[in-house]
């Protein structure tokens, strides 16, 4: 009988999510688990892209041995179940060994957000009170003077020097210890905490329990299934974890995920080709870069059978461009978030084939993200910006009629139930419904008659004008289609009469005529029955710095107001 990992009653080693790796280490010890490019090889390739991109590799058997050795050595150093361990390392084999070794002991791996403002470091440490940290010397130098890190008792360093008082990570991994049984845990014990960027207040650490991680793996397995022979290149760490739990060969991206670069397309394409990857998981921006590079150089990705993408809207054009350079493949567009991945999915070919309005100038009011994952419970509630307490506001007052736009709520085993040691974040993002916890996605959407989920915007971007709601997604797709528009945004400006005014902002291509763009926008928006009150030309539409795929509305609004830009809609 197959044991379902993460679903055992009481304390059990089979609740520990690392049990998946034990199984692969025993059943397929010689299969390659990870492949990666070392720094020297990458540097040589950057200097001359004709250089062969040689990948190093490790098998599931050897990975398992390293994890056990590292875990046993950490145990000898005093690490115990429940201890919080900051793992701050680049995406590398060492990072995975360290993280899994910690979890094998029933301790908790904590991932800080390197994109967070530096003053959040102390706040994150205060939140989790780490007992140990596994990182590199510069990171230790950065955190050592911060008082909240004074609780660190065990410091493990990737590049430690003699007499620096830290434990070399290599010595733990190379220890000849082989006896470190899997720590039994409760399914709802925390396995992993991942901090996300916030601009103020206490940083939010998603509390990922062993059950949550196992359920997420099951959900991803059902949504994007792998075969025994697949080789996958995932740019998102959570997908690498899923791969390792699935026993799939994983190629680590050689690009610097912290520093997106226009040359990423070339490097990713080189890896996909060199390693004969059959699958990959990339952000929409990375996908566009790979497509553009391959298109420009006449390259076909013949081995790729599936490209998974998500994290930001992706257009039919993006899908078509990728299918042009990988004609044997399909694109799988996932809709999900840190707290729930996946929530819905749609195949790229299906997306392209969806019927559209007979008039090509009329477009839908949102993005079709496909079918909601079948094991996910969901609801839509009216726009409600404050925390929800069901004792005060029952569902009957909150829920919207099916088919109407509302905020999407989800609940299920692979939905993160809370934030570590942060009741304030819980109140804002969750709704307690007896034993059930609902996650507020912050996304506004509706379900169509074919049970497909449409996302029309974020709750904080909805424009409430004269009692009617307007959403940016549809308007921005329309703007993108207008010749001369490089980027466009649709946002609300406060207005004493209407509540909000509907404002269009455009960044134009070089040489484009703003009056022609405005006139075309006037015609096309009237046709789509979208009211516009003001129109501005801006030098640049600000985008999120991380993925460069979402408009920063607050910044754009401030800039237009501060510059006292001229309204060209008159």
């Amino acid at each position: 009988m197959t044991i379902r990992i993460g679903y055992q009653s009481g304390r059990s080693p089979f609740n520990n999510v690392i049990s998946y790796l034990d199984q692969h280490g025993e059943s397929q010890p010689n299969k390659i688990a990870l492949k990666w490019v070392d720094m020297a090889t990458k540097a040589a390739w950057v200097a001359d892209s004709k250089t062969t991109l040689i990948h190093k590799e490790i098998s599931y058997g050897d990975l398992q041995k390293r994890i056990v050795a590292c875990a046993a050595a950490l145990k000898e150093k005093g690490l115990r179940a429940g201890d919080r361990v900051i793992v701050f390392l680049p995406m590398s084999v060492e990072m995975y060994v360290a993280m899994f070794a910690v979890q094998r002991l029933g301790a908790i791996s904590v991932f800080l957000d390197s994109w967070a403002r530096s003053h959040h470091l102390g706040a994150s440490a205060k939140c989790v009170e780490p007992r140990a940290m596994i990182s590199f010397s510069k990171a230790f130098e950065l955190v050592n003077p911060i008082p909240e890190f004074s609780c660190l008792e065990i410091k493990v360093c990737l590049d430690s020097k003699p007499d620096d008082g830290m434990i070399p990570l290599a010595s733990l991994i190379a220890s000849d210890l082989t006896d470190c049984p899997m720590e039994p845990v409760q399914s709802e014990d925390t396995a992993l905490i991942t901090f996300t960027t916030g601009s103020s207040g206490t940083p939010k650490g998603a509390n990922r329990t062993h059950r949550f991680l196992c359920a997420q793996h099951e959900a991803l397995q059902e949504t994007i299934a792998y075969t025994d022979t697949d080789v996958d290149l995932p740019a998102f760490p959570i997908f690498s974890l899923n791969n390792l739990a699935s026993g799939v060969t994983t190629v680590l991206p050689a690009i610097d995920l912290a520093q997106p670069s226009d040359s990423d397309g070339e490097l990713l394409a080189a890896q996909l080709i060199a390693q004969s990857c059959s699958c990959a998981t990339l952000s929409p921006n990375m996908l566009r870069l790979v497509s553009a590079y391959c298109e420009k150089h006449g390259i076909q990705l013949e081995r790729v059978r599936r490209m998974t993408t998500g994290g930001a809207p992706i257009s039919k054009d993006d899908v078509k461009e990728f299918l042009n350079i990988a004609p044997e493949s399909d694109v799988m567009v996932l809709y999900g978030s840190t707290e729930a991945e996946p929530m819905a999915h749609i195949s790229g070919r299906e997306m392209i084939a969806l019927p559209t309005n007979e008039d090509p100038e009329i477009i839908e009011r949102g993005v079709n993200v496909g079918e909601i994952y079948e094991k996910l419970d969901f609801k839509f509630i009216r726009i409600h910006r404050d925390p929800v307490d069901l004792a005060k506001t029952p569902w009957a007052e909150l829920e919207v009629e099916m088919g109407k736009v509302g905020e999407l709520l989800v609940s299920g085993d692979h939905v993160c139930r809370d934030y570590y040691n942060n009741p304030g974040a819980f109140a804002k993002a969750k709704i307690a419904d007896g034993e059930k916890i609902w996650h507020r996605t912050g996304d506004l959407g509706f379900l169509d008659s074919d049970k497909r989920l449409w996302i029309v915007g974020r709750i904080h971007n909805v424009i409430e004008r004269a009692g009617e709601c307007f959403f940016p997604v549809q308007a921005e797709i329309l703007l993108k289609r207008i010749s001369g528009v490089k980027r466009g945004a649709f946002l609300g400006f406060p207005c004493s009469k209407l509540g909000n005014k509907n404002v269009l902002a455009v960044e134009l291509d070089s040489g484009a005529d703003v009056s022609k763009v405005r006139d075309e926008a006037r015609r096309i928006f009237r046709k789509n029955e979208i009211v516009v009150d003001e129109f501005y030309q801006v030098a640049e539409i600000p985008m999120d710095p991380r993925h460069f795929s979402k408009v920063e509305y607050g910044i754009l609004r401030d800039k237009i107001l501060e510059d006292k830009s001229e309204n060209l809609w008159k």
Partner: protein
Amino acid sequence: MRKLYVVLGSPQCADFDLEELRKEFKESEFSFEIVAHEDVEKCLKAATEADLFLAYSMGVFFVLKEMEHLRERRLKILLLSPFVVQERPLSLVARLLMGVNFIKQTLLTKGARKMAIDFVNSCTFNSDKWERREEAISSYSDVKKWDMAIDSKLKQQMSSSLQPISGRHQAMVLLGREDRAMNVQMQLQALERVLNFDIAYVPSAGHALLWTHSKQVAVAIQKLIGDRA
């Protein structure tokens, strides 16, 4: 008299007064030369008499760049709120100009001292508006919007790679504990270029600690110079 070069990231920054910092030293102790990126190369190559380089924010990039040419010397460098990002030079320049533009506008209307106080206060009091400005710094990839020309030399400097500086130099890194202009990644990128350094945080200081926490900066200078270790 000892020579102290203060290296800032832009000509506009170089206009700022360091009156408070000067007050921390007797007139005879140091002579201050305040320079911006346009003058750094010339200044550093000729600056054999310099006792200490004090580099602030983007100025750290330029000092580290010049240090590559001064590997044989043993220099003392104080790095304040170091800011080093590469590979997306336009984004980098946009960040620089965003900050400079804001500071310049405030400087023109309120004066440097008031500007610095506003700057750090907005960090301390967690102003939403400032938070959005901070986010804006990293949200633009282009700089046209700032109406400030970026000279080709600056672009070239930004695009070239930065090697770790020699361990012969002695460096101290001073960071504002409440610095919201920097993320962890950027700070690490700066530290990775310096092989031999001590690091300290100034409690309640933001990114502009050169102006707002001159006492602590003066103590760091003295410590590095070795007068009052």
